[in-house]
């Protein structure tokens, strides 16, 4: 199978998954108890004219498939409807809060990659020692520390007690924003660091035991370059795959961390809109998170053969 065909198949698979996902998210509205129109305006007291507008906007006078098609068409053109809470288009509401969340996720990703891979590799190279066992214990506990618990402790110690970091808000200007995002990023990262550490350690140990490593050493290659060029290089595949699966969890966890630190971002937006019954925004955010997950993991699948040539582009990791 040629690379082009494999690529096409992967992208087709991604498109089908996204289509099914969009359908699920769209039709979830009809799971809500009662009439969808009254669900959409719940908590507000709309005038009859507004009710007619809602009815028209959602096309409730049309059959279900037509309504879905209508909605999908709009979504593909970037139109997610209007937010009742902010009296703006949903796209604009999300767009305004996206940079703050991207900064948070970006800083966390760097933390997770550096600490997770670093600690995992460090631990694997000291397999069986006391250091290794301490790392393992930290990983077991770390994987069980929810971001809200980490947030409480970090805020209490480094925000309130020591006063090193601000305890609330986003900040203005890059430096101030980074200062504000530091604690939330750590809170967000703890669990994922632990998971990445564990995978890195297991994967590195697996590779360290392989004969090709001994062969490389037997031919006089320096230990450092053998570790880099053979052990770490080969261990990357599983690390990448697992990291891809963590993306959606991380995005959802921004809801917790942003709420805990009183930051404005898409995570806190999600919670606010659930709280204040702005379903249009909730729907768009759910779709966004799932779509990012699907796209990222398709990318991982596409990149994987470059890391491990044994996996043909069509075969995939699954």
């Amino acid at each position, binding site marked *: 199978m040629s690379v082009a065909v494999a690529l096409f198949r992967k992208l087709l698979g991604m498109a089908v998954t996204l289509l099914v996902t969009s359908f699920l998210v769209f039709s979830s509205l009809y799971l809500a108890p009662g009439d969808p129109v009254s669900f959409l305006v719940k908590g507000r007291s709309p005038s009859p004219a507004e009710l007619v507008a809602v009815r028209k906007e959602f096309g409730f006078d049309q059959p279900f498939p037509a309504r879905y098609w209508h909605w999908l068409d709009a979504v593909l053109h970037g139109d997610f409807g209007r937010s009742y809470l902010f009296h703006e288009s949903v796209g604009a509401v999300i767009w305004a809060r996206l940079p703050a969340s991207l900064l948070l996720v970006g800083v966390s990703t760097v933390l997770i990659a550096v600490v997770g891979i670093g600690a995992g590799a460090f631990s694997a190279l000291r397999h069986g020692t006391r250091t290794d066992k301490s790392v393992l214990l930290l990983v077991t506990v770390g994987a069980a520390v929810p971001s809200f618990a980490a947030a409480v402790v970090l805020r209490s110690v480094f925000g309130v007690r020591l006063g090193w970091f601000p305890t609330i808000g986003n900040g203005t200007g890059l430096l101030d924003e980074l200062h504000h995002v530091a604690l939330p990023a750590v809170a967000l990262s703890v669990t994922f660091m632990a998971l990445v550490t564990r995978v890195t350690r297991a994967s590195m140990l697996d590779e360290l035991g*392989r*004969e*090709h490593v*001994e*062969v*490389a*050493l*037997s*031919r*006089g*290659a*320096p*230990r450092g*370059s053998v570790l880099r*060029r*053979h052990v770490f*290089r*080969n261990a990357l595949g599983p690390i990448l795959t697992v990291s891809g699966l963590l993306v959606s969890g991380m995005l959802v966890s921004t809801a917790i961390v942003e709420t805990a630190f009183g930051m404005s971002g898409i995570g806190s937006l999600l919670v606010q809109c659930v709280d204040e019954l702005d379903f249009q925004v909730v729907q768009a955010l759910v779709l966004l998170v799932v779509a990012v997950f699907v796209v990222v993991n398709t990318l991982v699948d596409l990149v994987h053969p470059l*890391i*491990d*040539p*044994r996996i043909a582009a069509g075969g995939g990791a699954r």
Partner: protein
Amino acid sequence: MTLLEIDALTVELPGAARPVLDAVTLRLAAGEVVGLVGESGSGKSVTARSALGLLPARARVTGRVLVEGRDLVGADAARLREVRTGVASMVFQDPRAGINPVRRIGDFLTEPLRLTKGWSRREAEARALELLAAVGLPDPPRHLRQYPHQLSGGMLQRVMIAGALAGEPRLLLCDEPTTALDVSTQAEILALLGGLQRARGLGMLLITHDIELAAASCDRVYVMYAGRIVEQAPAAELFGSPRHPYTRGLLGSTPPLTGPLERLRPVPGAPMSLAESAPGCAFAARCTFAEPGRCDHSAPELLPLTAAPDRSAACFRVAELPNPAVTEARP
């Protein structure tokens, strides 16, 4: 100066009941082909690895391993690198496991040249092409760009051999180089190794569990059992008249190419694992000639035979045993 001289090498692993190697002594002259025969777990591979300083980090090592006079026991990284890059190299058993599957064949061949000798990519690749041609691969420029999974086992073992020759070694350690291959390619690889050995005047240590193979391709053969050398002899003599009961057992349990199979006499019992130890001769529990109170009491040393000083055996009763035990004339 002897090419390889192993002197009373003892290797102990924490947690094991007996040493992995127990006072192993072995000599290999330049240009000589020496066989090292024994069952799996007898310590053949560890012995060969010691000649590259590749012993487990946790192991306790005593004795000497001299490669062209350099002692590798407790050697620093620089000396190890000197030996590994220019004097000795190893052909491993399974090329599928021994060659990094995610890197190209070219990387495998050029890596040591570029990393340890500081060659440029162009120089190293030119050398790699020569090596691939020398081991008889049909299309060196293409193989250079291929990944290991695109080659057959036999072809990959040729790549492994090419890799071992990259540093122009004088000592080639072959650790069961044909065991992982199809029967049909085994002979080709052995012929290739033999040809290279003669053409380049290599000293070669051939590790195998196949005593007939060792007899056919080696000048001298060492037989190992449970971490000890139990017999050493010129290949032809060992094959014609084995002296140690274990060697007799090995020869008796090899299926003959011709003649009835009833002649097969398997060695009773199982080889001794690392979790077991015995105060006396390690083979005593399986030996039909063992003398209670003597053989299971203390371990016999490897001593030259009085009748044939170029041979040696580690057995108390070697002089008393009927000789030779394998009477059937075999080619």
